[in-house]
């Protein structure tokens, strides 16, 4: 059975905190709950950004997700997202 929204949020945050690399593709979160559709997982991950718990990390052409505390930014900006 699919996880509840809150359970899914917790699972995504745990993954973002413990994964070996700080930047994660959206696909990396799919494993948090194989029973939830990718589009729904994407929506939950984007909600976590809105809540300030995750941030977007972009190479320009590709956008990934990260915990703010784990990102070393070349420019020393605090990531605004």
């Amino acid at each position, binding site marked *: 059975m699919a996880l509840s929204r809150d359970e899914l949020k917790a699972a995504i945050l745990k993954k973002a905190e413990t994964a070996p*690399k*700080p*930047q994660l593709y959206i696909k990396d979160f799919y494993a948090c709950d194989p029973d939830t559709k990718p589009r729904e997982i994407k929506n939950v991950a984007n909600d976590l950004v809105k809540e300030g718990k995750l941030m977007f990390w972009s*190479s*320009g*052409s*590709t956008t990934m997700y990260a915990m703010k505390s784990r990102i*070393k930014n*070349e420019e020393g900006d605090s990531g605004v997202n």
Partner: protein
Amino acid sequence: MAYDPANPMVDRISDIGPRYYSEFHPPVVKANKGKWLWHEITQPGVLVHKSETGAECWTVRVGAARLISIELIREMCDIADKHCDGFFRFTTRNNVEFMVDSKAKVQPLLDDLKGRGNRFPVGGTGCGVTNIVHTQGWVHCHTPATDASGVVKAVMDELFDYFTSMKLPAQVRIALACCLNMCGAVHASDIAILGVHRKPPMIDHHRITGVCELPLAISACPLGAVKPAKAMVNGVEIKTVAVNAERCMFCGNCYTMCPAMPLADPDGDGIAILVGGKVSNSRTAPKFSKLVIPFLPNTPPRWPEVVAAVKGILETYAKDAHKYERVGEWAERIGWEKFFEKCNIPFTIKSIDDYRLAYDTWRTTTQFKYTSHVK
């Protein structure tokens, strides 16, 4: 309420999209949408569209740099306010179109444009060379192998006569992309000017730990040429990557993912020329552009070698092609061996594909033409 930096989310508006297009239609367009019967180019740069209501929309097309200032946009607004009821548009090829609803209004508009120096050249229609679509280059990009705006300016200065006239066998679409990412549609253009790198990336071991996720850099390489490695930095062993230079195809994809792998270089970088692409389905299917000149050096400010190469191909085509034939259709009719001979372009092994799907481009027939290439 004004923006409050302390509370950026207060009153926030998001996801409203662009403005609705019909707010911006000139009146003659709004009244005749879906009712157009036919069009005609009455002189280079001037089109008339006739509606079933009898109304006419006269369009004056003007070339512009893609990189333009708000001062210039305001001047365009002045022109549109004066002649076009306060509306105008841009084309997908960075041209500007001023529209009026009667023939009588065309000449005053043309006169006004002419009186503004060389800022508003009229043309870019029919069987000519229209504006070059291009990318950012040294003006704004971090991965370019050449500039964009400057090369385009130099080429358009030389081909200006083809912008303001319609004497070619068909339209010729030129595009420029300043690196292999090809942010411009150069892979399907009659003549494509493409920035290329020729040196493998350097590895900045001092920076790589701070700015790169090594797995991303390693997986970015389509040929598996980037491998995990170790290096000594200030007496400490660090994890880094190594590049197998023999397998590098200079695409720069690793640099996109990892800023500690720069590959741009003044001598390594330059321009390749590709020809024969098209997007339209007219007569023949869309075609990719094909690489005919693998490298020309970067020679700012006016890139004379590139300008000469483009002009040479264009004028050979103009003389030799049949009416309606696009560059690629012409090259296929005469055969690529003839293309190289007629354009006086040395054929090199670099034009023979050895990447994926390469076999599709090899000749598997005994049919060919004897040109000077066959000794």
